[in-house]
């Protein structure tokens, strides 16, 4: 099975391993991530203002490039996922906005809103199925206590994202379990790490990050997994005692795809 894939800026630079393992693991599970052509950076943050059309064009072009009606567009980075999914929602629910955007795109290039945006994790749960993930595991993560960190972008706003229960998600925990690890549930897993503000107010970002990593440590985790490069950076920079790894890293390890 082939799905359209939007890697995003960070996966092409600072988070190359996230991208590489995402592709490898997908291949293992019988899915080819086909990078859409000529994609541009999504902008990293969704502007909720209804009169902001220009900043959302790259997302809309990606959605259109994902192919014909009801095709899936898969992302790995939580931020890209959030931006593209919210843009897609706006195209489907805000007629005025959609009209404006389609005017920008030009005649014949209009986007009809029919692409389905999926996070890689959702793909694993809804399309592949955890049972199949389990089958692919060669080196189970036995004994590893893994804390899933969702952050905000994967889950919220729930009325648009519909990823999981935004207050008590199980999406990543179920994956950890399928990989043979032991998920550690802690209360700050869906709270913001302050990544967006890392530049503006590093102190604030540090406070937020520490809350998250402390909570995970208190719950007895050995490591924290995330899908978001910004979260990873932010948690690491601010002195996390626990290692922060991408979920794809964990998968590659369990699937025995790591070369070292």
């Amino acid at each position, binding site marked *: 099975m082939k799905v359209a894939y939007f890697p*995003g*800026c*960070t996966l092409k*630079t*600072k*988070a190359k391993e996230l991208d590489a393992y995402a592709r490898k693991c997908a291949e293992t599970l019988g899915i080819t991530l086909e990078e859409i052509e000529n994609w541009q*950076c999504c*902008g*990293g*943050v*969704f*502007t*909720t*203002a*209804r*009169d*902001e059309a220009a*900043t959302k064009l790259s997302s809309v072009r990606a959605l259109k490039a994902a192919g014909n009606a009801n095709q899936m567009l898969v992302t790995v*980075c939580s*931020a890209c996922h959030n931006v593209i999914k919210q843009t897609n929602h706006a195209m489907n629910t*805000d007629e005025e906005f959609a009209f404006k955007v389609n005017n920008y795109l030009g005649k014949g290039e209009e986007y009809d809103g029919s692409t389905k945006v999926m996070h890689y994790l959702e793909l694993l749960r809804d399309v592949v199925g955890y049972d199949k993930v389990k089958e692919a595991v060669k080196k189970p993560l036995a004994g590893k206590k893994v804390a899933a960190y969702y*952050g*905000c*972008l994967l*889950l*919220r*706003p*729930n*009325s648009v994202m519909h990823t999981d229960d*935004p207050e008590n998600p199980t999406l990543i925990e179920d994956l950890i379990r399928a990989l043979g690890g032991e998920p550690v549930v802690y209360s700050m897993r869906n*709270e*913001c790490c*302050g*990544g*967006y*503000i*890392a*530049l*503006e*107010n590093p102190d*604030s970002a540090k406070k*937020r990050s520490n*809350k998250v990593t402390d909570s995970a440590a208190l719950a007895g985790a050995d490591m924290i997994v995330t899908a978001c*490069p*910004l979260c*990873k*950076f932010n948690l*690491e*920079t601010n002195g996390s005692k626990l290692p922060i790894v991408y979920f794809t890293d964990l998968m590659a390890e369990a699937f025995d795809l790591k070369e070292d």
Partner: protein
Amino acid sequence: MHKDNNAVRDEIIRRSGVNPRKCMRCGKCSATCPAYDEMEFHPHQFVYMVESGDIEPLMNSKSLYQCLTCFACVDRCPRGVEPAKLVEAVRLEVIRKQGANHLKADDIPALVTEELPQQAIVSAFRKYTK
């Protein structure tokens, strides 16, 4: 209430798509906000002050740049008010003015570190500049 304030208020309401009149003043947005202590005006005050057209103080406040855009207030509001969208709409009111960019391109190099991922820079630009 000043007439001009009404115009700004209406523009902010239109831009955000938020109806602040739905607010029942429960304060759950502020209870939920992770950046509360960084802010001079808190999410519930944004809602109330936009509704009453008292927008000038908000525009002059650094609270505009402390919102983490984590959407927790949007999700947890029992009235579907979506305070974060109001914060953003007010912020745009400020930074869309000529020369009012909150983040200058010249400031960037000093802030960038080796490990800083692209998206941190991109998103900061998008949030704080026009």
